[in-house]
């Protein structure tokens, strides 16, 4: 069995600032790490590797420094990695990203299970998994809360909708995105960190893939970001509650009664 886990590198903190002059995001000095939700997908793959001997590959698209996250996943235990890196891919939205990822998956070939984290913590869309599933014409199970092999070529998963639990059975190949509650990702061991540098990391550029150039990067992206800003909460006039906790609590109860809230 072959599993490909699609991962993304994200800034290590979400405390990004807007440059007051250019109004662009100021990401200077922010180190990149593997998207935390993707580690749950890597863990699921490694778990299946432990129990079934599956082969686990990682796949990401981004600048050359995204190799760090691929190494991190290989240090967790993945067998190999693919980095899709080209200036032509830059500025891609979810549709253009999903296209290149899908084309790379076709080239990798024969993946039985394609895994994604629930969403990236920076852009928060969770769209690339279903887009890839559609482009590959594969069934999808999103937001899986559990997943097990229920046959030689079949997985059974539970999906938690807002107030419903669904059980789904998929015959492979299939695309699955996982919830973070699914597992606790393992840490790289010193031995696996050492081994990770001997594992193959393949970098594919534009010409290595079969691509329609009109579907790439910024020009292949239907969405356009027209404005970026920091949200400003709306200020209210504060009535202070004063005195001892008991006095302040009785002021609050009086106010809530006046507002017919209690």
């Amino acid at each position, binding site marked *: 069995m072959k599993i490909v886990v699609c991962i993304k590198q994200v800034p290590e903190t979400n405390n990004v600032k807007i440059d007051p002059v250019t109004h662009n995001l100021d990401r200077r000095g922010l180190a990149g790490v593997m998207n935390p939700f993707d580690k749950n997908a890597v863990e699921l793959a490694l778990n299946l590797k432990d129990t079934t001997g599956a082969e686990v590959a990682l796949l990401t698209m981004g600048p050359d420094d995204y190799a760090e996250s691929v190494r991190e996943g290989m240090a967790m235990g993945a067998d190999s990695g693919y980095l899709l890196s080209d200036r032509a891919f830059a500025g891609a939205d979810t549709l253009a990203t999903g296209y290149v990822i899908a084309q790379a998956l076709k080239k990798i070939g024969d993946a039985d299970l394609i895994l994604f984290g629930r969403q990236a913590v920076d852009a*928060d869309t969770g*769209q*690339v998994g279903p887009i890839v599933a559609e482009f590959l014409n594969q069934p999808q199970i*999103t937001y899986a809360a559990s997943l097990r092999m229920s046959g030689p070529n079949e997985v059974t998963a539970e999906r938690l909708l807002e107030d419903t639990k669904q059980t789904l059975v998929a*015959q492979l190949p299939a695309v699955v995105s996982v919830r*973070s509650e699914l597992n606790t990702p393992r840490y790289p061991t010193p031995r696996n960190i050492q081994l990770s540098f001997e594992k193959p990391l393949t970098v594919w550029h534009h010409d290595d893939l079969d691509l329609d150039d009109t579907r790439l990067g910024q020009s292949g992206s239907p969405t356009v970001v027209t404005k970026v800003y*920091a949200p400003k909460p709306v200020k209210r006039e504060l009535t202070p509650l004063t005195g001892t906790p008991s006095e302040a609590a009785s002021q609050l109860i009086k106010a809530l009664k006046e507002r017919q809230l209690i």
Partner: protein
Amino acid sequence: MSKPELWVIAERRLDHIEPTTQQLITKARDLAGDSFKTVVILLEAATDHLEDELKPYGPDEIRVVRDDRFPTATDAEHADALQQLVETYHPNGVLFGATITGRSIAPRLQAKLQTGLTADALGLRYDGETLIAVKPSYGDNIMCEITIPERRPQMVTVRPNTFVAEEAAGPAEITTTTVTFHPVARLQVTAATPVVNTATTVGDASRVVALGRGAASAAMVNHATQLAEKLGGRIGVSRPLTDQDRFTHDDQIGQSGNTIHPELIINFGISGAVQFLVGMQDAKTIVAVNSDPNAPIFDVADYGYVGDAQAFMTALLAQFN
């Protein structure tokens, strides 16, 4: 020349309509003005009448497609049916709830249609025929305005509870149409069961007791549970408390989680990170209790107490008793 259509894709939740659908109808009517026709797309079983739950919200039209396979259809089957409808009627905009279901079906439809999809929007407006969606990023620390200038339809998933559903007089003309149901092999929904104990989520609660880093002790959680019961409400938490076993991201306010607008929220030990404030600032009455007089939460609160959260909580509970 008929008006361009703005669609709301109705979502089923067990035997009812998911509330985000009604919220989106109200917002769509507001967006449409005199320039667009609001159409709700409803895929249901032959004997269903979920349109009855949509009609009071007054869209221009409720377009129903009936097939007994829809209630248990997979994401790909839903997306296939919606693709056929889009290619027949060519809507200008298509709105989904950013529920798990909406966020799973919409991107598949987007990929079929090769158009744009903005995720998890918190705001929507039209500029002419261009739909501008406000999308949070970086855990709600940053807002982006996103448009889809050249392709149609303009697709958006909208965060639940961002808009308030209001009943309205409107034509609500019910029409039926058909699609060809293409069953997708290799995936079966074998069971669907209601999850107990989530009858009220923090997003649905009209009264919320919110706990943050300064109110994270077991005693505080215990007291907050009692207070929430007395108020007929629910506990919500800021991000640090989601590390505790008893809370999950579903209990979290703000941060790509729940945007809430309860009648009342009482915040204990929450200083007020931007994403939290934005997530709860539509509450009608906001109370803040924090030991730091400079905490940003006081800027958006109606009532504030500077002092020990535990002491205030104890006093408040005692007086409720």
